[in-house]
């Protein structure tokens, strides 16, 4: 284990932290903490990007790190906190699956994701060894979170965390996406959150609650 360079070790640690934060989100009921965890995940992602930029000398990665900090650590969490205050949704209700069950499923997902990433890891010489597996895990875990939560707010955070996973995967597999794509995705995410923010107000005005099970009543009667 002595021969692993420091940058590599740091990257591995960042990857593990991303996964850790994903699990922390999975086990968290408070929406406010969820947003904070999301911000932390963004910060770790930015740190990983910076590390990779420093190691490979690819300049556009610096830009992308700056973008990550601006958008995912500062702006979006601020926006979400504001939304929470305005909408007064501090707690999620009981998730569909209890926390331990959620985590157990999460564990199985991680094993599955790593088995899935095994062949890709062998192909991609640039990938840090476990990073792709972790990226896939983060995406799937975020998906799981979106499935098991009732409140729209938590689902948005899940959606954003999923984007983090995709971003990390792209970064570790091929040193990031082309700049245009990255900017596009960033814009997409931003617009998506704004649209959803508007959407929340609409939902609440209609149902007096953000609990998504009200949407079930919207289907046509047979």
């Amino acid at each position, binding site marked *: 284990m002595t021969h692993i360079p420091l940058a590599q070790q740091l990257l591995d640690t960042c990857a593990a932290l991303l996964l850790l934060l994903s699990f922390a989100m999975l086990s968290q009921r408070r929406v406010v903490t969820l947003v904070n965890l999301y911000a932390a995940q963004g910060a770790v992602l930015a740190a990983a990007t910076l590390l990779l930029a420093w190691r490979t000398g690819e300049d556009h990665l610096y830009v992308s790190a700056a973008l990550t900090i601006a958008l995912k650590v500062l702006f979006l969490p601020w926006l979400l906190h504001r939304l929470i205050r305005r909408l007064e949704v501090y707690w999620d209700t009981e998730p569909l699956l209890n926390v331990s069950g959620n985590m157990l499923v999460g*564990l199985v997902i991680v094993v599955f994701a*790593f*088995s899935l990433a*095994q062949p890709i890891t062998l192909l991609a010489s640039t990938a840090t060894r476990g990073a792709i597996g972790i990226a896939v895990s983060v995406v799937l875990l975020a998906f799981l979170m979106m499935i098991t939560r009732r409140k729209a707010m938590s689902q948005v955070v899940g959606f954003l965390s999923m984007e983090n996973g995709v971003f990390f995967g792209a970064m570790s597999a091929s040193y990031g996406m082309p700049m245009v794509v990255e900017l596009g995705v960033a814009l997409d995410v931003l617009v998506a959150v704004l649209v959803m923010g508007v959407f929340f107000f609409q939902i609440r005005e209609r149902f007096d609650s953000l609990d998504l099970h009200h949407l079930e009543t919207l289907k046509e009667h047979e």
Partner: protein
Amino acid sequence: MITTLPPLLTGCVALLCAWVLVGLAGLLRPGSVRFAGRTLFTLGAVLGLGLAVLAGASLLSGGTERLILPLGLPNLPVHLRLDPLSSLFLFLLGASSFGISVFAGGYFRQGEGTLPGLLCLQYHLFLASMGGVLLANDAYGFLVAWEVMTLSSYFLVTTQHRIPEIRRAGFLYLLMAHVGALCLLLCFGVLQGGSWLFTFHAMRAAHLSPGWAAVAFLLALIGFGAKAGLVPLHVWLPDAHPAAPSPVSALMSGVMLKTAVYGMLRVGLDLLGRPLWWWGLAPLILGLLTIFYGVVFAAVQTDMKRLLAYSSIENMGLVFAGIGLTIVFAGSGMPAVAALALLATLYHCLNHSFMKSLLFLGTGSVLHATGERNLGRLGGLIHRMPWVAWLTLIGTLAIAGLPPLNGFVSEWLLLQSFLFAGQLPHAFVNLLIPMGMALVVLGAALAGYVMVKFYGIIFLGQPRETSLAHAHDCGRLERIGLLWLALGCLALGLFPLQVVHALGAVTGQLVGAAVPQASAHWWLLAPVPGRSVSYGPLVFLTATAAVVLLTVFVVRLIYRQRVRRGPAWDCGFGAATARMQDTAEGFGQPIRHLFQPFFEIERELPEPADRTPRYRIAIRERIWRLAYEPLARAVGRLANAAARIQQGRISVYLLYSFVTLLVLLAVALIS
């Protein structure tokens, strides 16, 4: 034929025959408790001790003896063999049965259903047939002994045959045992590999294709798994073990389950030769599931013997997980680690035999003294039955896996071998292993929960019924039996190196590697190849005892305050009664709550305004509804369909025979 008889094997066979004779002697005066109960059982116990000595000598010498007895059908003599593996299990049989038989000598009384003399015959036949299973060196002898074992234990289970539930439990046991035996029959059929020779020697020489070998392995797993109580074939066990009288429960849990382990090791690691690594996954995964399943159900039981039966299921899961791990390692070319895993497995067999026998006998004494099996009606027995309580405490601590007792040693060894799993050359298994390890430690911790519940509710607290005030301690013979088993637990816990040394011959025989003796000290166990890991229970005990005694001494010396007895404080709430203690249901409530999906719960809660509130809860296994009941219905339908050919007219039956004859003749003509 043979000019000189092999001494140890002949001795063992003679002792087994003597057991049968002792059993038959019971028929001389079948109604006498004094003769059949006291004298003959004690005699049987001495024979057991002799068997343990002979088997122990054979194990230490590490040699193999063979004998061919011209019994039975012409040209089908009985082949016998005493090698390290069978010596180990024979030792286990002899040593545990000594304690159990002595206890049984003081236990059986008039009015247990079956007459004492008949019981004596069944009991000793059971013992002798288990010995026969262990010594048999051909499939015929093995299966005959296996069936005698099943039948004699069936009669023992149904000792109180006037109770319908016990008859039902016995029937279920017989049914499952026969499903298992059928699988074993087929397994041996595959193992002979076209040579049609059914000696084990021929089976070792037979070369099976990997596919057939896997089939044989799977059949053996089902057959022996059904006997060992592996989930999902365990359903008979929680009914049958509690139904039997306590010494028989002890014998079934403590010894009979081990014959299944013996069979699995014999077929999987000896007769099949080199196992492939992925075969091991089946017993490993099933074993892990069984651990978890068994312990969770044990935690919610309210009948003390059922609780112990589920705990036996858990322990067999641990053993089978160990077997699986052994095969995975052995098939992956890591014989030293395989030896370590096998060592843990064998060690746990020995441990469980002593601990579980001790606990079952303890419940037997409680049952005799109080007539109660329901935990909810016991309590405070430590004051009335100090011998039973303190000796059972040793078994309780041992089975909870606490150092420096024996349960800890085998768990320690198993965990050490699990820690090697990261080095396996199979990526997927490497992912599975941490989860397996997590299940093992979770099972061990839950076993602690179960045992606190078991001991705390039976022996501690206030008596929950007034009748418990008349409970009496056990008699002298019972005490000796309990003491023997408790001492066994202590010895196995405190001298692990000596035990490991003795087991070396078995690991050498089965996986071709003895466990390295890295330790230079006789009191230190350091069996892990290439790692500086060690465990010294004697030092551990000495250090703890020294610290504790020093504390007592210092506290007594400096602070000479007297002790006053007063009513319980209980936060100043004076009106506490025995009914305010936790019940067995209450103590299991967190587990019931947490693992709800496992149980099928039927609950009656009292209304707030009820004058006579009644709380009732019944917990069943989901597996009945999910698997066994549909299966039973399907069998019933099949039987009904088959019943259609039953016409009741002679001419129709003759027609059946006639058609069969014609078809057979036609087949003969064509081929």
